[in-house]
């Protein structure tokens, strides 16, 4: 370096530390906990799950036995207590998308990538932190919802318990399902960089795709149906495996695989595109 016109006289600063994955994780934890949208969305998810664990069993008990006896035959007290997860996935999916697109919309992403020029540690850290937060919050929520639901169903002796076969898997599976929805949201947010685009693509995949497939002739729709993201993910929440769906863990694995594919596509685009 050529000689400067002034000599550096400032006191030596504390020794600089390298950017690494652990530091980026800590940074993303600070980011996620310091936004109000995080608490609002997660609170909404909890309220949906707990609320429906009261509402749905309460309506069932009030109208028991059903007019159609076949309805009683296939009755699954676990899924009935957890029906709120279908609304909760909205809140968690949107939050996942927003965690990334919010940075693009505000320009924060440039500060983030200037601090972490390798970029990918940011994506991994966001995904890991959000997955951990969602899981840690959703496991007790779905357990609570399950217990509340069962206590209401007890009045007509419709309840089940966690020790029954497949029940614990279905309950914990509901929390895992929601976590993967969040990961899918992060991946789509990072890939599309736009809140509206990310959210509509996420819900297109989860809700609209199954409707479109239903319009196809059954010779087409039947084999496709179980591989759709939402159906694959949902399989784990059924206590008695549904023959039209994939096996519980296979389905969740596939759903997770979809999220991983989207995250990898997002990683490639993140490295290549200008911030």
């Amino acid at each position: 370096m050529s000689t400067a016109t002034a000599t550096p006289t400032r006191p030596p600063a504390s020794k600089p530390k390298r950017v690494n994955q652990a530091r980026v994780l800590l940074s993303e934890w600070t980011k996620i906990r310091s936004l109000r949208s995080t608490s609002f969305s997660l609170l909404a998810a909890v309220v949906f799950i707990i609320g429906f664990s009261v509402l749905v069993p309460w309506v069932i008990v009030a109208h028991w036995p059903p007019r159609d006896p076949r309805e009683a035959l296939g009755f699954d007290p676990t899924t009935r207590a957890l029906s709120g997860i279908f609304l909760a996935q909205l809140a968690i999916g949107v939050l996942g998308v927003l965690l990334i697109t919010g940075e693009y919309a505000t320009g924060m992403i440039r500060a983030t990538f200037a601090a972490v020029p390798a970029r990918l540690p940011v994506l991994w850290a966001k995904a890991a932190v959000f997955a951990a937060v969602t899981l840690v919050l959703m496991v007790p929520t779905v357990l609570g919802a399950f217990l509340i639901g069962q206590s209401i169903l007890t009045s007509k002796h419709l309840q089940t318990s966690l020790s029954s076969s497949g029940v614990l898997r279905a309950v914990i599976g509901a929390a895992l399902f929601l976590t993967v929805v969040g990961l899918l949201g992060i991946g789509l947010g990072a890939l599309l960089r736009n809140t509206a685009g990310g959210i509509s693509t996420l819900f297109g995949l989860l809700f609209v795709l199954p409707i479109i497939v239903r319009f196809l002739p059954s010779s087409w729709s039947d084999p496709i149906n179980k591989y759709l993201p939402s159906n694959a993910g949902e399989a784990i929440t059924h206590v008695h495996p549904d023959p039209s769906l994939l096996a519980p863990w296979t389905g969740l694995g596939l759903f997770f695989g979809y999220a991983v594919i989207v995250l990898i596509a997002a990683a490639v685009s993140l490295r290549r595109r200008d911030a």
Partner: protein
Amino acid sequence: MIEALGLTKLYGRKKAVDDLTFTIRPGIVTGFLGPNGAGKSTTMRMILGLDAPTSGSVRVNGKLYREHSAPLHEVGALLEARSIHTGRSAFNHLLALAQTGGISRARVDEVVDMVGLREVARKRVGGFSLGMGQRLGIASALLGDPHTLILDEPVNGLDPDGIRWIRNLLKSLAAEGRTVFVSSHLMSEMAQTAEHLIVIGRGRLIADTSMDEFIARSSHNLVRVRTTDPDNLAGVLAGPDVSVVAAPGNALEVSGLSTDQIGLAAGRAGITLLELSAQQTSLEEAFMELTKDDVEFHGATTTNESVSPLETAGADR
């Protein structure tokens, strides 16, 4: 130290930055000047590795930006349009950036105090004024105590007090031996702080010169004289290196002589002078003259008055 070599950026077929080569030295404030849309922000984003150059390269302190293992310690940047999430508090914004490089909370508090945001540090950035946002951006640039500072339009939205504060800050940072690279579309602002100038227009390098040289080159030392007898005076003043041009209203525009010399010569010849005034070309005019062919967006009216971004320049002179 920032070294750009043949730096070029194409957006589609449009050249936003066209073959820029320059070196920004430490120890002084270097101004980066150009009309709106000249490619200043694009150049700065390329320095920070946010945008990839189409061709050429730019190195900071000897390395590509992304090769630095502790980037916040090498380069502190204030980017255009406040790169700050509006939903977070100033403190948490700085803390999240600091944590990527293992920078302490104490340092976060320190920079918050340095930019005078202590009272609002726990408030959401969304409610900040433009000036407070600028201060927060400067706080994030200072976080890692960097060797090099890159500031895109730092005085935007600051009140006169804030502008003076920024000028002094930039000068003291440079005096500590750091590289300070500041963009602006206001020549008057640069004249106050920068020792060296890089001027670009339409992505191309127009000038790479010291501020003193720029000022010397752009002042024509034109003297306007109005007299009862312009023809006679023109004869008296004529000489080598002197140019005399007749102007309307019995006036002459003289270059190559000072007002003193003209006044004395007229006195000796017994010619009555009605007006004798030095016509200093302002730096703003010199800059406009330099970039007039390279301004991206002209107003709809006559070109000379419509180089819009520069018109606001007078405000803080």
